[in-house]
């Protein structure tokens, strides 16, 4: 773990070691460092995110782009974690502006159609403003709103409904659709994991939630790639599961990542997954048994 944390100390992070600074790996590295109580090491990451934030609150993905704003929720969670640990003394991230920006973004709805299996009327969040909502940006937005205490905000509640609506009937989720033109799609580990983190603690008796946990338990193995493995384990940890082999898988994945040119995104996610249920992504966002999902 300490080796991994050392790899995350250099801020800002790109998707590859030495590549252009990017908001997603930088925010997740900050979260991983904060989760390991490395508050000082997280400061440069937080400072970069703060400087990278646009006036409207948006945090775009790359240093030289001004949109889209899909990484904004990750920055909100990182600063929520820092605030929780009083680790933001030197940083001026405008969480209120980021929240306003996030709430200004909504997915374009679809009229009910036999072509699609999901409820296209649920708004959720898109990857890019002006397009339809998808599972992962909705999950990160829900996590961000929960991390700043907005568990019962109407957008949070609707986001949770969307995430459950987009689970496949047999468990797990695709990147966003469930059924297209009558055909059920395949589940994938990464979107399933992050969706399960976002709906952790929700009072839902929808059987697809438990089936999704079971899907992850069956899908993860020692060949699962670092990003999918990490999100898969986080999804399970958020629902109080931690497979016996998880530590071995994480260790092997880290050796693999370290062997090649280390990707800060891979390393940050592996660290967060190793933190399990103590990971700030979970501790800050696991719902305190809010109203039942209808």
């Amino acid at each position: 773990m300490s080796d991994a944390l050392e790899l995350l100390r250099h801020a800002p992070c790109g998707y590859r070691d030495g590549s252009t600074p990017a908001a997603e790996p930088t925010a997740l590295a900050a979260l991983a460092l904060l989760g390991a109580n490395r508050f000082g090491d997280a400061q440069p990451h937080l400072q970069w995110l703060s400087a990278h934030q646009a006036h409207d609150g948006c945090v775009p993905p790359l240093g030289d782009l001004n949109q889209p704003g899909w990484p904004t929720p990750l920055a909100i969670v990182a600063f929520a974690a820092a605030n929780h640990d009083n680790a933001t003394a030197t940083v001026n991230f405008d969480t209120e502006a980021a929240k306003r920006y996030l709430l200004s973004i909504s997915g374009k709805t679809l009229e009910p159609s036999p072509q699609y299996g999901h409820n296209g009327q649920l708004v959720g969040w898109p990857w890019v403003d002006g397009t339809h909502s998808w599972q992962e940006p909705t999950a990160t937005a829900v996590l961000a709103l929960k991390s700043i205490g907005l568990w019962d905000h109407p957008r949070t509640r609707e986001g949770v409904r969307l995430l459950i609506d987009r689970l496949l009937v047999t468990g797990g989720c695709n990147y966003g659709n469930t059924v297209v033109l009558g055909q059920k799609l395949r589940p994938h580990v990464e979107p399933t994991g992050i969706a399960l983190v976002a709906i952790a603690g929700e009072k839902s008796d929808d059987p697809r939630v438990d089936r999704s946990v079971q899907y992850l338990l069956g899908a993860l193995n020692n060949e699962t790639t670092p990003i999918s493995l990490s999100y898969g384990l986080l999804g399970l940890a958020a629902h109080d599961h931690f497979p016996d082999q998880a530590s071995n898988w994480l260790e092997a994945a880290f050796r693999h990542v370290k062997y090649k040119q280390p990707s800060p995104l891979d390393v940050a996610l592996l660290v967060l997954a190793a933190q399990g249920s103590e990971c700030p992504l979970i501790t800050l966002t696991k719902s305190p048994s809010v109203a039942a999902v209808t």
Partner: protein
Amino acid sequence: MPTTIEASKPESCEAKNGGKFSRRTLFAATGAAAAGVVALNAAKQWLSPKQPVFVAKNQRYDGPLRQTISDGLLATGFQPAHFKGKRVLLKPNLVEPTRLAPQLTTHPAVVVAAAAVFRDWGAQVTVGEAPGHVRDTEMALVESGMKAALADADLPFADLNYENVEWTSNRGGASKLAGFYFPHSVAKADFIVSLPKMKTHHWVGATLAMKNLYGTIPGIVYGWPKNVLHHAGIPQTVYDINASLPKTIAIIDAILCMEGDGPIMGSPKQMGLILVGPNPTAVDATAARIMNLRPDQISYLDLAADRLGPIDDRKIEQRGESWRELVSPFTILDAPHLRSLPADPTVLISKISRATTVTA
């Protein structure tokens, strides 16, 4: 460089499905500059000689693909000297891979064989892809078998979803997008080789060399899926991307193909073919005919016809095998927007195929 991604208003479902466009109405709405470029391209098409398309049959993934691809490139007008010292980006289709459905993605053997040819001819070869649905690109490489193959061949991979991007104006003008953010590896390439799988597509009929180039567009800017493009119209953005890229070449993996509910959930169909050509529009039109689909009913091909290349068989010079002897009808979904696709009206159109439904 613009300050927005400039997504246009979403098209209607009919428009998205490509069934209700005419080129006249589309291009009437575009700017004068784009219209001028298009008119010039059309004039060039009419004045230029026939576009060559090479088809090889009896191909296998464990066969001499390197020789086949080399023969195809030479037969369609390329010379090794064209590639000496050039940057060649090979773009396979790795849309949503699972090792349980090899008909989904370009076979690694085809990619490695193509890379060997261009390397032999002195090119700097990179393999690049921006998988359209999955965020975990390494997973896509592993599930498609590409990761091990690239390592064995010592081929570099460019993750086009997460690279730095460069702005390029939209040189097509069919959609309302002002331009595209292309990944660095795409913008700097001298040649982009589209290496698709021959597949049906449940919205636009078929996905071949032109549609495969959606995978040059980075998810980091356009999302997973690249919904900005969908909302701007699939046929129009396929056309625009092809018009805006550097020089493109098509090599289609039509050995194990996908029919039915493509491009993700369809069934395997063995064809044993490789198609090669310098003009993706002409190669796609020939591939569509082999699939028993009418090229003029595939909306992006209809848009591209005589602008980016010919789809009229009289304007295509066949090299290698004759496509007529290779036609083997692909089943397609029984959906209203796809019913005009088959060239042979007697071909039965399948119900949704569930043969390849897989849950992990």
